[in-house]
């Protein structure tokens, strides 16, 4: 993965015509971003599955009509679970749960983290010191452990899991936003705006926020994958989405008791989690290359 898509010639090869060169450059760009494109395709497919899946596969995820622990067949492509519920419809519903939790919790983290980071970077001094020490303290906790403590104490539910995940990952956003804010505020055009008497709010909205978007977008993508993994872990421990509503982590936990008789139940939810997380990781890698070369490999 070179920073510049390079088109090289073997020694002695004559320079090809310009059109060929241009096509080679495009090909190099697409190749370089093949990972990002794959990620985008996986995420689009997941979103389509969550939104359109229930329309295409019209089996109720709560219906216990079928026999229990059926092997995969035409009627139930992924088999049935321990209560005779269709596994495919539960996986499809689980996609909605995963995406919802991922998006809501990352938005919580994004909004709180951005406000904290901008305030710290913009006002500096005591405000900065106070806010950033708080961020340091939260960073001092292993993320998943803090999420388990908060979700467990708030009481096991999907809403509380989203709140817990949002709180836990907000400091990461605050740190990056503060760093970028300091960088942007040092630029001459901010000074120019200040000397023209532009208000603080307007400087933040017009000059600061648009210029810290690139790292924020990359960070959001990366944390979507982390948030989905964390939700799966919380649900696996019984601290996230509660049964009978299906979630991938919860389904995986339930499947463990029937592993000998119905191993397919332990495969599908995990594969689903992995695919979505992989999709966001790929997309994050690709976006990082395009938007923010300095963040690469960090």
């Amino acid at each position, binding site marked *: 993965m070179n920073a510049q898509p390079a088109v090289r010639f073997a020694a002695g090869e004559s320079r090809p015509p310009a059109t060929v060169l241009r096509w080679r450059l495009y090909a190099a760009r697409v190749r370089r971003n093949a990972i990002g494109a794959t990620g985008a395709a996986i995420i689009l497919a997941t979103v389509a599955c969550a939104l359109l899946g229930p329309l295409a596969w019209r089996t109720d995820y709560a219906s216990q009509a079928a026999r229990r622990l059926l092997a995969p067949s035409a009627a139930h492509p992924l088999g049935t679970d321990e209560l005779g519920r269709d596994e495919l419809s539960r996986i499809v519903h689980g996609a909605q749960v995963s995406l919802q939790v991922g998006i809501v919790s990352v938005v919580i983290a994004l909004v709180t983290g951005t406000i904290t980071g901008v305030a710290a970077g913009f006002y500096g001094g005591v405000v900065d010191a106070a806010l950033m020490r708080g961020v340091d303290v939260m960073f001092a906790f292993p*993320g998943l452990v803090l999420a388990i403590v908060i979700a*467990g*104490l708030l009481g096991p539910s999907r809403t509380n899991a989203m709140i817990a995940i949002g709180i836990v990952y907000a400091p990461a956003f605050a740190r990056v936003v503060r760093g970028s804010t300091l960088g942007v505020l040092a630029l001459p055009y901010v000074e120019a705006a200040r000397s023209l008497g532009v208000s603080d709010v307007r400087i933040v909205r017009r000059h600061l926020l648009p210029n810290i978007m690139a790292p924020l977008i990359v960070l959001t993508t990366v944390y979507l994958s982390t948030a989905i993994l964390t939700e799966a872990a919380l649900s696996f421990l019984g601290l996230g989405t509660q049964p009978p509503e299906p979630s991938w982590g919860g389904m995986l936990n339930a499947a463990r008791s029937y*592993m000998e008789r119905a191993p397919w139940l332990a495969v599908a939810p995990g594969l689903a989690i*992995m695919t979505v997380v*992989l999709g966001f990781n790929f997309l994050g890698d690709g976006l990082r290359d395009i938007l923010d070369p300095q963040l690469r490999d960090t």
Partner: protein
Amino acid sequence: MVRYALRRLLFVVPTLVGMSILIFFMVRLLPGDVVDAMFTGEAGASATAKQSLRKALGLTDPLPIQYVKFVGGVVTGALGNSLTSGEPVSTIMARALPITVELAVLAAVTATAAGVPLGVISAVRPNTALDVAARVGGLIGLSVPNFWFATLALLVTSVFLHWIPPVTWVPPWRDLPANLAQITLPALAIGLYLMATVMRMTRTAMLEVLRQDYIRTAHAKGATSRAVMFRHALRNSLIPVITVIGFQVGTLIGGATVVEVMFGLPGMGYTLVQAIFSRDYAVIEVAALFLALVFVLVNLAVDVLYGFLDPRIEQA
């Protein structure tokens, strides 16, 4: 060097104070308490009985007083007793700690032992089949939930090897082979993510170092490529790799928590989750503070080690 380490150690103190405040008030202010949890399902429990129990447990004192007691206990080593079982918290911690330490160390060692060579091979032979396989494998390793990996591993061992790990923990000092057999799967599951991270970081760092002038110089002066790889390239690449391992200790601890619950290994994470379900404040506070303390200290050690390995850092 020593001054640098001491200065960094001083910075840990405010962080620790902040952590203790955060944990204490989080545990006390969030809804539900240990007495409610103890009386769940007992409809006949009177409010007075609950209140007197709260008083006996010291839960009716004003919060600042409770906080001072908690901090005083931590500082003097008097960690109090579990609110549910009455067992001293220090005994519970002493029992849980070796399990988590063994898991984490084993995970970190396997992850490093496999991740570094894979990263080196990947960097030295870029764009070969091996490199592509290692890179894709690395990204997959970052995406596999450890509890799913562990589930699949259990599935494979139970179906093909007809082997299921014992449900009670076997200490290594009693029966080492049995202990290793029991702990290998969970440790691998926890270490997978770290292995992928180490492999990716090693690869990036190696590629970076191999471009440096001193590598060309080393080749030019006639050093064997083996010597160049190990003495010049790998040594310098390991600095960022060590940092990454330090950062990932948090992930390791979090992973250990989930996997311990899954395998029924009564380590720190398992103890913490059980305590959360029963609202055993005394255990939650100490366990959470302890896990955070370990994380902070490991990061501190990495920082100091980093300054030691790369003398430029200290001056900066």
